[in-house]
């Protein structure tokens, strides 16, 4: 999927223009990512980099033309995720996911992840507020 078509996806889901940057990373969101470049990616996990200060999920995204684009998705700090019930095996290679996030300002295929949805519809990291009562990998 090309960058352009991803942007069209972003528009299709609302193209939200967002005004407030999060403070969950020790780097400023706005220095790296563009809050006006919302992306939604569907693909398969190629690799989970369980690294500090933030995990990075490598995602193979197949476009309508069959071409596969390799995206990198920034997640939370491993220690924070661990306390939420995650570990480095939570997203095995080949896992199908949908990622909502915001693309990097330099236009490369990198994004700050916001929410991950698994094939069975369960959410990782987040979900409904009620899901927060359970480890993140539980339904």
């Amino acid at each position, binding site marked *: 999927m090309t960058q352009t078509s991803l942007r069209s996806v972003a528009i299709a889901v609302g193209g939200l223009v967002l005004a407030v940057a999060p403070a969950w990373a020790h780097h400023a969101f706005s*220095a790296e990512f563009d809050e006006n470049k919302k992306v939604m990616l569907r693909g398969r996990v190629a690799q989970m980099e369980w690294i500090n200060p933030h995990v990075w999920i490598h995602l193979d995204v197949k476009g309508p033309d069959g071409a596969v684009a390799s995206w990198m998705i920034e997640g939370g700090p491993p220690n924070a995720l661990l306390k939420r019930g995650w570990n480095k095996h939570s997203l095995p290679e080949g896992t199908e996911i949908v990622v909502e996030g915001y693309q990097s300002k330099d236009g490369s295929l990198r994004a700050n992840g916001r929410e991950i949805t698994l094939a069975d519809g369960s959410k990782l990291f987040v979900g409904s507020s009620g899901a927060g009562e359970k480890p993140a990998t539980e339904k």
Partner: protein
Amino acid sequence: MRPRFFAPFAVVAAAPLLLVSARAQTPKAAQPSTTPQAASPQAAKPPAASKWTPPRTPWGDPDLQGWYTNLSEDGTPLERPDQFAGRKLEDIQGAELAKIKEDIQKRTITNFQGPLHAPEHWWQDDLNLVKGSQAWLVVDPPDGKIPALTPQAKERAAARAAARRNSGRGPADSWTDLTLYDRCITRGLPGSMMPAIYGNSYQIVQSPGFVAIRYEMVHETRLIPVAAAGKEPPPHAAASIRSYMGDPRGHWEGDTLVVETTNFRDESTYRGANAATLRLVERFRRVAKDRVKWAVTVDDPDTWTQPWTFSMPLTMDDSQPVLEYGCHEGNYGLRNILSAARAADQKAAEDAAKK
């Protein structure tokens, strides 16, 4: 492998956009216990009247060892907010303090709501800011305000700002334009002991002649030579030997560990202090089974018109061990910040060329 698309976009698009994981969302079973001491409105009072006697190490020093956290102090302002003018820190307790902390918690939740963030009560509740024990941190001077800067400190600050302004540099021309924290190097001292957005666990370990303090965020360990009871600590390193975290020396005053740190570097000095003259004096005293009172006196006559002290409790909590935080391991953020700045430079150049 053929991707199997599984979630209609409409469904996903209708889901709230949520923050991936802002802070450690501790499973309920691992929530820090609410101890009477940690939640007590007495936490900010001097511990002198405590009848509790700290345990001793096998070699006879007061035993401070264990896992601690200061997560709940994250929302506590350093200086006294103006709304408390004329009030004493120790007088703001009980229901009044509880209301202040509840307001901080609510404000934090509100600030983090929204499409880029998390829905209410997602991870924010885990901050436990309601357990914060003080209305502010500065305990001396009694007005809760940092003393005035000296004239020379104001001149230094102005010169630094002017040099930056006149340098012609952008915010991220090079990695050297970014902070030591951005670069995973250090948060300095006392920065490395202060609450952060995640990773707020400490570990204190003692051996004869040494105390080691480790903090999860940026994963710095201070190794403090400590004199035996009744003995003088060894002298500081030569003035020419400077480090980001300074050169610490410790000794015991009764049950209180006193750590004096000097020999800072300009790059990491606290609040613009003169790194060559800054002296930080920390006092660690275990005042309860699960609490250490930590106070820091900031003394630099070249920067402030008088020394000043702030204090906060460190709460022992075995459910919050220090986890590995190899910040350099994959600090792609720095690369992304620099590449974003180069993209902005290119766009600016293209825009200029069109004019």
